[in-house]
């Protein structure tokens, strides 16, 4: 039996000035070569556990620490993060704060140089890690010119340059688009399989990585609530923590099927075994645009009431730089909810900034049917006061369910509460905005908070507000929008109903849609389960399936 690479022995830890422990009596062991996923809601101890594993807790953060953590046989109380860094590479959530040098090559070399490697070893280490991560073409680029995905890869490269035995990652995909996120998870899997690097990954979007991991450790209130293989975790989540269920697991639970699948492939195999997945090509069975949605789209074209927000051939061209928006024409009706999707740098944020008047188009015109409230990516940027009550009017706080928290410090709120407070700030208490625009509002949010936000957006849409959300999260888009717009290179490349757009792809598709090959336009587990029940009853025809799926879809036409 091999010695554990990382072990926690009855670890309890509280941050300075905080009475409630962030970790409570945590005991676990991680063997060399394991790929572990840390699951849990926001604020339940995932990041703290990672920081304790690399010695930042308690050396950097201070606080009360009890118990023992050993990494590669070294006690973290006796050895600081610098010494432990030789065994553990760390990647945090925000790549911006993890790049400390000006060029990629210098960034990758820094950790190797700090550890006293010779010039040849440094050069070889840089070259090898760059090749392994496919960032060799970036070596001579300056770090502030890189895209978000590139920065995250370079930061990962810097963490891996010394070939550590353990890599600790704290929500590394939260700022990445679905393509870059999947690439990063694939890369980690490859590192784990080819180099036998031990990986501990904290992540909210479990469906993205569950099929790649060997083990899942779920934390609740700083305690280990579940520790087992993905199947065991999913069974546990099904009855003990539904907020941690993946869409596939929820789909199977609602449809009364088993075993609970860890990913799309396993789910499809089970459905095929139950003869619930036709052998036909997905394109033949998928009817991406339901008849009702087509009718509505036609109605929209014919009736054309006054738009809440209208972009007419909008260009945004940088002086001495590229065009960020290229002739975007888009019309959003009152009461419509639109999900803006696309890769990082596609122009989504710029489009929303134009709506709120933060940017002026260099060509084209933007018309608004009233005030546009824009909620930017980081809710913390809105908070300037010490009390919630000072940030937004009481009426606005009540509208987002924060009236009870008026006396609290905004920075002490949870991720979901912070987002709601920011929403109260931008919407205010006066006239309701005609348009509510949100830029990547679910970044770093757990599934429960996302669900609450989606409901809030649905309510606003039903009240007649036009809602437009830029998001990388297809599940959230499906839950809150009835129309989806896909952008690439500053252009709108696809515009249709959510059922049409989020059902037929690989990256910009929900897990339910990928499992069911987009059949019936079912995007959410509830819709998929209804479709499966219909099929199980033997009454499956595409039309019936579509009807069933759309009959129960909240707000989906």
């Amino acid at each position, binding site marked *: 039996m091999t010695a554990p690479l990382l072990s926690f022995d009855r670890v309890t830890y509280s941050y300075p000035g905080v009475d409630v422990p962030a970790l409570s009596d945590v005991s676990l062991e991680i063997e060399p070569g394991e790929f572990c996923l840390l699951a849990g809601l926001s604020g339940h101890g995932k990041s703290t556990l990672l920081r304790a594993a690399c010695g930042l807790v308690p050396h950097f953060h201070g606080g009360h620490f009890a118990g023992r953590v050993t990494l590669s046989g070294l006690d973290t109380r006796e050895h600081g993060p610098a010494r432990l860094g030789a065994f553990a590479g760390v990647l945090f959530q925000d790549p911006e704060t993890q790049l400390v040098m*000006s060029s990629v090559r210098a960034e990758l070399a820094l950790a190797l140089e700090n550890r006293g490697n010779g010039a040849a070893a440094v050069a070889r280490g840089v070259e090898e890690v760059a090749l392994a991560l496919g960032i060799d073409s970036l070596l001579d680029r300056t770090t*502030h010119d890189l895209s978000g995905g590139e920065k995250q890869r370079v930061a990962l490269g810097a963490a891996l340059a010394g070939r550590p035995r353990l890599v600790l990652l704290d929500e590394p995909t939260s700022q990445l688009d679905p393509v870059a996120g999947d690439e990063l998870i694939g890369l980690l899997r490859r590192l784990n399989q080819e180099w036998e690097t031990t990986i501990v990954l904290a992540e909210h979007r479990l469906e993205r990585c569950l099929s790649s991991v060997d083990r899942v450790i779920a934390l609740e209130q700083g305690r280990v609530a579940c520790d087992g293989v993905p199947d065991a975790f999913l069974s546990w989540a099904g009855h003990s923590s539904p907020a941690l269920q993946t869409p596939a697991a929820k789909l199977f639970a609602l449809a009364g099927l088993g075993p609970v699948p860890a990913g799309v492939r396993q789910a499809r195999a089970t459905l095929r075994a139950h003869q619930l997945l036709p052998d036909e090509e997905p394109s033949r069975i998928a009817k991406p645009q339901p008849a009702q949605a087509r009718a509505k789209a036609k109605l929209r074209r014919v009736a054309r009431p006054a738009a809440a927000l209208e972009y007419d051939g909008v260009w945004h061209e940088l002086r001495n730089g590229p065009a960020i928006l290229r002739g975007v024409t888009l019309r959003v009706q009152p009461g419509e909810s639109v999900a803006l999707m696309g890769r990082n740098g596609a122009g989504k944020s710029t489009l929303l900034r134009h709506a709120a008047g933060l940017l002026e188009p260099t060509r084209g015109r933007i018309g608004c049917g009233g005030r546009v409230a824009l909620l930017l990516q980081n809710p913390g940027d809105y908070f300037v006061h010490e009390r919630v009550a000072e940030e937004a009017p009481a009426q606005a706080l009540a509208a987002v369910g924060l009236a009870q928290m008026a006396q609290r410090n905004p920075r002490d709120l949870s991720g979901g509460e912070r987002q709601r407070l920011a929403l109260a700030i931008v919407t205010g208490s006066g006239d309701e905005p005609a348009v509510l625009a949100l830029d990547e509002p679910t970044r770093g949010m757990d599934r429960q908070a996302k669900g609450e936000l989606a409901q809030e957006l649905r309510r606003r849409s039903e009240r007649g507000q036009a809602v437009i959300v830029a998001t990388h999260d297809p599940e959230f888009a499906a839950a809150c929008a009835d129309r989806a717009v896909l952008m690439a290179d500053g252009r709108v490349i696809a515009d249709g109903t959510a059922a049409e757009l989020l059902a037929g792809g690989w990256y910009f598709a929900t897990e339910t849609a990928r499992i069911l090959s987009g059949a019936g336009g079912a995007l959410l587990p509830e819709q998929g389960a209804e479709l499966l029940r219909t099929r199980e009853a033997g009454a499956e025809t595409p039309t019936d399936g579509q009807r069933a799926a759309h009959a129960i879809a909240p707000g989906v036409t």
Partner: protein
Amino acid sequence: MKAMSFFYRRLPSPLHATRAGVGALWAAALSLATLLLYHPLVLLALLAAVLCAGVGAGVGRLLARSMRTGAIVWLPIVVVNVLVYHEGVTVFARLGDLGPFGQGNLTVEGLVYGAVIALKVMLLILITTLASLTVDPDQLLRILRRLSFRSALTASLAMRMIPVLAADAQRLAEAQQTRPDGPPRGARGRVALLRAVIGGSLDRAMDVAATLEVRGFETARRAPRVARPWSRHDVAFLVSAFAVFALAILGRLTAAASFNAYPELHAPIGIGTAVLCVGLLAAVLLPFADRRGIDA
């Protein structure tokens, strides 16, 4: 969204292709020449050389912008000098009693000397800008790290934090603009905003410090010496630096660049001055003629 930024970016130019140590030495030689020489014509030749070098390095537009911004510095120098110094003999305006500035006899000599000092300041700003845009700071800091590791890394971090904090400030300002009633107003509002900005910066600094900790800053050792063959550009700019330095010394020691402002303007223009101007232009610009092996 970046339009123009005053940060180092690797471009295809001979200066960018030169090792950082030589690039820094070349910039130092230009600065020394600026400090040693006073003759307006020679300084103008140097200005032309620096601007052309900027164009040759692909950063001409940024230098021009820097020159415009530099007016905040050089314009007051000229105005104050002409108001304060009355040692010249050629009066072009009598303003009477100017209180703390004494009698307001404005002289041509005061004006010209102010312009010369302003030109020197402008040149120093441009040379610094050119160096910061074309000399790889990581390579330079690597050299310095062999001398004082922590100071060099702190400098490196400070440089890295500038664009990060600038982006943070931009984000915060945008968020405040999207409030229905605009950003917080009044003294209390401004204090609250300032507190938020400082708090955000400290949070950023904490995150960066945590990153450095796990990258081994605590146990950091001296950077290893990297043997790198001398490229044609390294040699060309090194020769250029020595040539500029030699011409500056020569100009200072001989009558070729002699200049006196007071009591009467004395700036002879002879063959020596012309040779010095042409020499400086050639020494600065010739290394840009060879554009082989300058991949970005």
